[in-house]
Structures are given as C-alpha cells and as structure tokens.
C-alpha cells in the first residue's frame, strides 16, 4: 500500500496493521526517514517537501510492485509526507512483512534506496543563509544501482 500525505503517521499503528492477523508473517522490517539538522554551519530550521502529484503515486506503486516481484512479501507499505517539516519530524516510512526475515530486510532496503532516486520529491531547506534546494547525492544513485540487474 502507498500513501502520499501532508499528515504525520503513527509508526506503531502502521506496523501493527501491516501484519495483523497474518500468522505466516515472521518478520517486519521498517525504515523511517526523519528531518535531520546537523547544526553548525549546516543548521536546518525546517524543510519543505514538494512533489509531483500523480507521478508520485505512480512511481511509488511501481517501486512497491517491483519489491513484491523480487521478494515473497506478505505486505508492504510506503508512506511519504510532503509540505513543511521541522527537524525530528518523520518524512517517510517504508515497511515490509514476510514469512522470511531476509526477504523483509532486503525488500525494505531496496524500497528506500529506489524511492530516494525514483520518487519525484524535492526538498528545500531553511538555513541561516536562506532557503536552498537540496542537491541529489551520488551515493543515493550508487545505492540504487546495487539493486539493478533483476534481484
């Protein structure tokens, strides 16, 4: 399941719901991305996430379908927020449930790596020097490339 929303989410409730009643599930892996403020010269007082409504949902659904094609998942969930967020706020939740620990862990890792490079979101940060657009990181592209070649 995918959700793109302005509102915060409740991790415990989401993870409980993910595997609820399915007793074949042996493991639930999750990743939560938070707004980070490293302080000092890189002080970030807030960030705003912009996205491409329509394409975002399409890409997240494709990414989720690909994870389900590669691993035997009982359930998966991607929630991505947009709008203005402050340090410590939750941005994204990726969660996977599977009978097998390795499948849940690998699929979760795959989903967040792909989402970083394929989901049309853009961050701008509020800093002491004014607003600035976050630049894409080469490491994110490299992390994504690891999963190329058909799992």
């Amino acid at each position: 399941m995918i959700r793109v929303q302005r509102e915060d989410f409740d991790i415990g409730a989401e993870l409980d719901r993910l595997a609820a009643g399915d007793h074949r599930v042996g493991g639930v892996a999750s990743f939560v991305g938070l707004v980070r403020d490293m302080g000092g010269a890189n002080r970030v007082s807030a960030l705003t996430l912009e996205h491409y409504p329509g394409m975002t949902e399409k890409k997240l659904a494709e990414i989720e379908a690909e994870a389900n094609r590669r691993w035997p998942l009982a359930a998966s969930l991607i929630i991505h927020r947009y709008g203005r967020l402050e340090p410590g706020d939750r941005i994204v939740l990726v969660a996977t449930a599977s009978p097998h620990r390795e499948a849940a862990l690998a699929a979760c890792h795959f989903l967040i790596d792909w989402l970083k490079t394929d989901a049309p979101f853009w961050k701008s940060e509020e800093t002491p020097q004014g607003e600035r657009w976050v630049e894409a990181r080469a490491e994110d592209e490299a992390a994504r490339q690891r999963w190329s070649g058909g799992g």
Partner: protein
Amino acid sequence: MRLLYFAWLRARIGQAEEDLALPADVHNVAGLLDWLSGRGPRYAEALRDLSVVRVAVNQDYVGRNHPVRDGDEVALFPPVTGG
C-alpha cells in the same frame, strides 16, 4: 501540451505550469528543451545546465530522444531528493 515545472525549475521559470501549443518542428524532448530555452531570459537561465534537468512525459522518466506530442503532460525538474 501541458508543461509542469518543479523545485528550482519552477522557481526560476516563475510558474508551476502552463499550457502551450507545440511548434510543428518540435518532435522530441531535446527539441522541446531547445525551443523553451528561447522563450525568454527566465527559461534560458533555468535551462542553462541541462545536465541537471530531468524530464517526464506523461509521468514517466524519459530520455532526450523521447517523442513529444500536443496533449502530452511534460514535466521538467531537477534530480529528485525525497526519502
């Protein structure tokens, strides 16, 4: 054709979207970017470095040779930074 701009491309071009009639001699993404660059200083500035401009046609990432047609939804934006 519907054009959408995101992030600093939106900021530099000064609008989030516009409807344009595609010139008859523009057939693909490369041609569209070239034609847009000539529409004024804001476009020229926004599209100065095409290596950091990504394009989606009808909500799929495409390369520069991808065809464009009137009626398409074409989005221009920098590399994504979500997650």
